[in-house]
């Protein structure tokens, strides 16, 4: 009984927090400088990629240290589609999603044989291979090799009275909200429960008629598609892609963002994104020479204070639901 009222209470708090966050995020781009708007856009872009990683790791229990590769693939797909084929930038988002879904799905097939840290290692190899592949001479004509590809900054459509930065911020916000909604829907559905069942007890899941290989590859593809959309948005917003923007540190950063936000807690993705964008800046602000070490210290302190990420902390305070059940029931 009390569990029910408590979860109804925390659901109401979550709803208020959601409305307040939405109002704030709509007002923000008009209250801060263009550069900060650009940074906040990047926070949301990383949050989208982390959201995808969370579907993979938090929900289905598979690990990836290679989502930077899918991010890069999405970014390059968008850049090449705009630069070489004149595609409208808005259409590059579904394009990147489809390409990355397919590649993620195909990568997921051999990955089925791998569990836990072995899967993490295989995905890490993918991350390591990305920059050299992008510099590879056969694809140079499209990828521009080391120089990368430059893009023009898109202006707001319909003559909207917005700066370019504000427009891209709002575009990213809308895409991010839609993808968050999709992730929530999945989590609270038959599909989501099947994925959680696989994580909780794969043998029992099989006996319930859940097709493990199909669901594991499916979620790998969906997760990669999220990273791909984030990558495409990043190419559009940064107006530039180059191999070294997608070195393995990006994959690590996404994983760190996932852990900081809270594995299994979807809104944590935003905090993870903020950590990726701001933690290095803060570290550099304190001491230029020691920024790397300070970044590590900030990370250690955060993990110490919130061993289960921000989501875990909120859960302890009774303000968020557990990561395991998709919904209050």
């Amino acid at each position, binding site marked *: 009984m009390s*569990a*029910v009222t408590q*979860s109804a209470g925390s659901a109401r708090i979550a709803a208020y927090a959601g409305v307040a966050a939405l109002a704030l995020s709509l007002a923000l781009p008009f209250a801060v400088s263009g550069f900060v708007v650009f940074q906040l856009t990047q926070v949301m872009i990383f949050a989208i990629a982390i959201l995808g990683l969370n579907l993979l790791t938090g929900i289905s229990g598979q690990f990836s240290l290679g989502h930077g590769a899918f991010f890069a693939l999405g970014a390059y797909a968008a850049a090449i589609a705009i630069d070489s084929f004149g595609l409208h930038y808005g259409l590059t988002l579904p394009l990147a999603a489809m390409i990355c879904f397919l590649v993620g799905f195909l990568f997921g097939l051999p990955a089925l044989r791998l569990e836990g840290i072995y899967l993490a290692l295989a995905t890490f190899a993918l991350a390591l291979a990305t920059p050299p592949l992008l510099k590879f001479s056969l694809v140079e004509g499209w990828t521009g090799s080391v120089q990368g590809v430059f893009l023009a900054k898109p202006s707001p459509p319909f003559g909207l009275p917005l700066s370019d930065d504000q427009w891209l911020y709002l575009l990213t916000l809308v895409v991010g909200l839609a993808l968050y909604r*999709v992730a929530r*829907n*999945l989590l609270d*559905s*038959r*599909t*989501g*429960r*099947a994925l*959680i*069942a696989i994580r*909780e*007890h794969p*043998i*029992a*899941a*099989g*006996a*319930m*008629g*859940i*097709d*493990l290989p*199909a669901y594991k590859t*499916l979620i790998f593809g*969906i997760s990669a598609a999220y990273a791909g959309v984030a990558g495409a948005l990043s190419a559009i917003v940064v107006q530039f892609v180059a191999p070294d923007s997608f070195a393995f540190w990006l994959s690590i950063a996404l994983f760190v963002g996932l852990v900081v936000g809270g594995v299994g807690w979807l809104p944590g993705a935003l905090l993870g994104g903020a950590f990726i964008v701001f933690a290095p800046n803060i570290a550099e602000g304190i001491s230029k020479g020691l920024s790397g070490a300070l970044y590590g210290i900030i990370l250690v302190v955060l993990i110490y204070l919130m061993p289960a990420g921000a989501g875990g902390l909120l859960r302890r305070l009774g303000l968020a639901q*557990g990561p*395991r*059940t*998709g919904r*209050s*029931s």
Partner: protein
Amino acid sequence: MAAAADNGKATALLSVDDVAVTFGGISALNGLSFDMQRGEILGLIGPNGSGKTTLFNCLSRFYTPSSGQIRISGRDLLGLRISNVARCGVGRTFQNVAAFAGLSVLDNVRIGAHARVGGHVIADALRLPRARRAEQAINAIAEALIDELALGDVASTPVGALPLPRQKRVELARALATDPQLLLLDEPAGGLNHEEAVELGALIQSICDARGISVLLAEHHMGLVMSISDRVIVLSFGRKIADGPPAAVQNDARVIEAYLGGRAA
């Protein structure tokens, strides 16, 4: 004679024919054959390590026999993928509880309805009307079973937080949510006292009668097996040593010998 036997096999719900399973030289099942009719409660007994769970794992397609055939409603079970076994009407519980421990009782039972209520990931992702209808159907199935098995008071409790007998009850509800024709129960009375075992027996019988389904009951609790089984099969070292009505099996010299620890002749 042969024609009659074939005919019997075609109409049997389950037909196990000369099945053998070996693990690195150990023969866990050896030349096992039996049929099960619809609506039958078939007791499966035998000393520890006699192959009961191994048989269940073959029926779930977790193990593939080295030889032999298994048919379910006339279909070749060994040609199925694991995930299609439930769709062919085989539901089960596990000897060592295999509930989704971190999930609520309700979610566990909902997952049982996974294969029974179809769906598509795109419909789920976009919460299309189709997905909402599926969700309602799943909830209706789960809630009815939770009522039937008296789990209402713990519906939102994580299964891992419940005592073992209740976890087994959740597994039973989850298995029933798959809508089985054949229900495999692996030691459902483990950890129950005498009264609870009697109550469980009545529950299994009523489940079976209400649905007209068959139950294959692997159990060490002789009182339970002998009171509710229509027929009992006895395994010893992977071989069937007796097959008949409870009263006859109980008095079979070979069965008594197997249980007294002697090697079956």
